[in-house]
């Protein structure tokens, strides 16, 4: 980590950093407090050879092939929610962005902006989650950075992660590759992450607790690559803006139409109920653990079976078909046989009055 040189002399932290403490401005000073923060909280959790070298940057072997790089910044409030926290999101989100390009991730970098007063207990839980998420996928966090800002200047903590991956010749999905006749598949139930966060943020309680779907999608894309290879034309993870926004982008970029079947959309009962209460449409609600795949017609069944064999994809469903036109337009056959357009939203969905 770039704050690391302060550790070089094997300095001993004068202030014990036991549990129950808080992040102080001094933890971002580059001095002894910074070094102790790193040594006591970050390094033990993320330990790996590249990080342990403690240089200003990590040095990695080139695994060969085309390199794929993605970066994402995470600013969720609350920092913890049923099913995960900002740390799990930060690892899964960037790994998933690489996976959607057909890449196999091999390294992560992480940057932290910590707000003065952030409880160490909370920071530890986030770091534990990040370490566990990275370990589960076998992708090390090889370098990083921490900064501390004054109280009130960050919402507890912000996390940026950057991921590196390698793309393979036999598997290069891209947003402009959808063709008329292709199948549109989602790998699991929609709307869970957004509604889980909103329920906590707004203090809404429902009979069933909605948990975030946050998950690393690399196992699913690995399985799709093995089963369908180039038959997978487009992969997207429908995070902000939800499934509807991603499909609109695919329709526009590929110059095709998309027709959805409302009856086929996998919307969990609890998500449907929460959305009904708040006047929101689950198609626009964020997800963090599902993918949208556009698959050549002859591979559609194989893709669906492959996804369903994996625990993350057990509720995969074919939700629609790519059409020749109208270009850039996503239409839906409603459950009762009507039709409508599924447009992009001008901004966030706003809860309605009554």
């Amino acid at each position, binding site marked *: 980590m770039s704050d690391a040189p302060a550790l070089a002399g094997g300095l001993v932290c004068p202030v014990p950093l036991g549990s129950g403490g808080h992040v102080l401005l001094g933890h971002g000073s580059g001095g002894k407090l910074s070094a102790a923060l790193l040594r006591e909280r970050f390094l033990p959790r993320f330990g790996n050879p590249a990080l342990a070298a403690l240089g200003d940057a990590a040095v990695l072997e080139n695994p060969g092939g085309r390199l794929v790089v993605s970066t994402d910044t995470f600013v969720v409030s609350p920092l913890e929610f049923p099913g995960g926290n900002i740390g799990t999101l930060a690892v899964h989100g960037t790994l998933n962005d690489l996976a959607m390009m057909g890449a196999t991730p091999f390294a992560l970098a992480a940057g932290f902006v910590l707000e003065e007063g952030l409880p160490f207990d909370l920071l530890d839980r986030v770091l534990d989650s990040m370490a566990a998420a990275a370990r589960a996928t076998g992708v090390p966090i090889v370098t990083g950075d921490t900064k501390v800002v004054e109280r009130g200047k960050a919402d507890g903590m912000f996390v940026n992660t950057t991921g590196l991956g390698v793309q393979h010749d036999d598997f290069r999905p891209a947003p402009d590759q959808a063709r008329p006749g292709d199948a549109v598949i989602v790998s699991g139930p929609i709307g869970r992450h957004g509604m889980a966060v909103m329920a906590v943020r*707004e203090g*809404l309680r429902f009979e069933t607790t909605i948990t975030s779907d946050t998950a690393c999608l690399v196992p699913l894309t690995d399985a799709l690559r093995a089963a369908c290879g180039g038959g997978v034309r487009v992969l997207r993870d429908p995070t902000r803006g939800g499934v509807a926004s991603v499909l609109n982008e695919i329709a526009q970029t590929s110059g095709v139409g998309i027709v959805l079947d409302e*009856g086929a959309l996998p919307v969990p*009962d609890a998500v*449907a*109920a929460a959305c*009904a209460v*708040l*006047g929101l449409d689950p198609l626009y609600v964020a997800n963090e653990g599902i993918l949208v795949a556009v698959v050549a017609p002859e591979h559609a069944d194989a893709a669906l079976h492959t996804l369903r064999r994996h625990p993350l994809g057990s509720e995969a469903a074919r939700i629609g078909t790519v059409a020749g*036109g*109208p270009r850039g*337009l996503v*239409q839906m056959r*409603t*459950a*009762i*046989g*009507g*039709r*409508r*357009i599924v*447009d992009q*939203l*001008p*901004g966030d*969905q*706003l*809860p*309605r*009055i*009554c």
Partner: protein
Amino acid sequence: MKYLAEYRDPALARALIARIKTTATRRWVLMEVCGGQTHTIVRQGIDELIGDQVEMIHGPGCPVCVTPLEQIDRALAVAARPEVIFTSFGDMLRVPGSHTDLLQVRARGGDVRVVYSPLDAVDLARRHPEREVVFFAVGFETTAPANAMAVWRAHQLGLTNFSVLVSHVTVPPAMTAILDSPDNRVQGFLAAGHVCTVMGWTEYEPLAVRYRVPIVVTGFEPVDILEGIAMAVAQLEAGRHEVENQYVRAVRREGNRPAQALIAQVFEIVDRQWRGVGTIPASGLGLRPAFAAFDAVARFGLGDVRAVEPAACRAGDVLVGRLKPHECPAFGRECTPEHPLGAPMVSSEGACAAYHNYGRTRLPAAHPA
């Protein structure tokens, strides 16, 4: 899921569509009063499915849409004050005032917060005695009990830093105004189910008799709407004009008596201006003198705020059913959800937004069934 899935059941919906088509011997014109119903109709494509037999005119029952421009301007003025925490239901945030909207006020430093219940605003006032907390009390009879409860609670707590900007409206006077209009085409109504949950339907009985129109209290899911339409069409075909209740799982004839009592205790009936429509006598609720201390207009001296509605916006014609949203010359051109000229293009319940977002005008021609 109980009370949701069965009202979205495709087989039931198809059976009701078939019933409407076989019952109607001519084309009837119905108005759904509530914006929530409008959204279900356009979102599910119900109007297209029954269009040959029944024309649906989209009524004025969107609280965001009918809140007058000068009341929005008052909200914007008070929300920008440094001592104020301005609280509102979410869908008021993007409604354009004369010059700006609440999201812009927030971006420039105004403390504007979305609440799900007006009691949350009272709680904010209790926890922030050093700030002035203002709640934007808009809506029909549906939101009136909760808003009345907030004022009552603040009164009980002796709060001196809580006030409400009231813009409440009531449904029956608006229906009367539509029926009295010389160019009225509405032959029957789907009454707003949630308004009737509070008020019951006794107020509608004299209307049905006097104007000889069927009125069916109707819910909000696709099967509710289709059943309400089928009931109204059956009445029209039989020459009946009664108040019937489709929304039996939520509405009783007498409504919710304790809620009505609370409304009557805090609010009194006043003349109210409706955006794009003008002033309708005895069509709104205002604070009773006993609760005048909670009136934000008086507290912040907002009485002088006056506004002129943009001429290009034909919201008034849309809200009383004289114009379909896409027939407005500004629709989709000067007026879009990103840059709305009027509230019906903003609110999730607005007819213009429904037409725009669900792309009614951009759908390719339907194939004959």
